[in-house]
């Protein structure tokens, strides 16, 4: 005789191998017991069908905002100024400095926007969060990281350009997270024109151009891509 508690533990996958075998053997020759098992499986399925969609819905903005507003506000950007050649040269120089910073992150991967996993540079922390959740069409004016363009690469991965005070770059979503395809210095200091989303940084824009297959995503496609977890196309 299989009591209800054992039967439910069986349905919940909580029995060890011997326990499972015992229930299966008993059910094989006992249609009434099989019916009791089916009834419990059906209940599980009913609950899953009813509550499952709640995890698929878009989370209300006011709940997301409670977490997103905890971002330290970045000082508002100054109005855009034209950029002479020497500033581009400075930006390139800063890229080298960034390389050193990334190298340091390799040794102490706990903090910072970049980590390394299996030989790949991956976005982490606030940068990864921005890449995951932020829509270019709806970002706060003082967001620490600005998302520029989102697009599909030729290999089907979804990629996004970003720019923050420390770093600008291009990241593509792989199985392990956002892989940084290229990075360059951000717009800290006198060059605070990073608010010009997308094409603000010519190095990033060029890299995006090289990788992009087709057109950039529009606002609706960007939202869909986010809601489906930036799955490969």
């Amino acid at each position, binding site marked *: 005789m299989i009591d209800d508690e054992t039967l439910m533990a069986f349905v919940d996958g909580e029995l060890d191998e011997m326990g499972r075998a015992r229930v299966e053997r008993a059910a094989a020759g006992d249609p009434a017991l099989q019916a009791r098992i089916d009834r419990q499986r059906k209940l599980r399925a009913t609950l899953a069908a009813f509550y499952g969609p709640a995890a698929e819905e878009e989370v209300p903005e006011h709940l997301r905002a409670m977490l997103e507003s905890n971002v330290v506000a970045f000082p508002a950007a100054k109005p855009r100024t034209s950029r002479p050649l020497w500033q581009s040269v400075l930006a390139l120089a800063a890229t080298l400095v960034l390389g050193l910073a990334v190298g340091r992150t390799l040794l102490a991967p706990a903090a910072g926007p970049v980590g390394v996993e299996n030989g790949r540079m991956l976005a982490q*922390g606030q940068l990864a*969060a921005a890449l995951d959740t932020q829509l270019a069409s709806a970002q706060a004016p003082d967001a620490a990281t600005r998302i520029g363009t989102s697009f599909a690469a030729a290999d089907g991965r979804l990629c996004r350009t970003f720019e923050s005070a420390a770093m600008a770059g291009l990241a593509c979503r792989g199985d392990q997270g956002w892989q940084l395809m290229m990075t360059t210095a951000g717009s800290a200091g006198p060059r605070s024109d990073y608010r010009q989303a997308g094409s603000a940084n010519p190095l990033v824009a060029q890299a995006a151009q090289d990788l992009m297959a087709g057109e950039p995503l529009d606002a609706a496609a960007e939202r869909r891509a986010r809601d489906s977890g930036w799955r490969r196309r």
Partner: protein
Amino acid sequence: MQAFERELLTLLPRLRRFARALARDATDADDLLQVALERALKARAQWAPGTRLDSWMMRIVRNCWIDEVRSRTRRARTFVPEEEGAAIGSEAHREVELRAELHAVEKAMNNLSDEQREVIALVLVEGLAYKEAAELLEIPIGTLTSRLTRGRQALAQMLEAA
């Protein structure tokens, strides 16, 4: 944004599902989650990085439900029979019936005791192992399984009668 907020953000959809299974309806569930998030942000120092944020957060949601929202829900619920009674014989009555059919699961869940409801939410909706659920609720595993068994029997009966 810190790792804490970032991880919580990714947990939000799941926490909403859990809150939905605990609270009376979707509105109460989001209110519950809001209260729980406020509490979590204040208590963030108590979360040890490297430990599971999902269990920690589900415990907060559950405690908030016990402490704050549930009492309000109880007050709200006392009005429901009156509404239904007043609508008998009218078009509205038919609507109430229709809604009742659609929400048979919700209704059945609402008829469970709080103790049964939370174990069902943790094990059957969220898929926690018995051991995890018992630890989260700080009850012995035998208590968990007997609540689970009784809650399930009641649910199955109500749903089959619906």
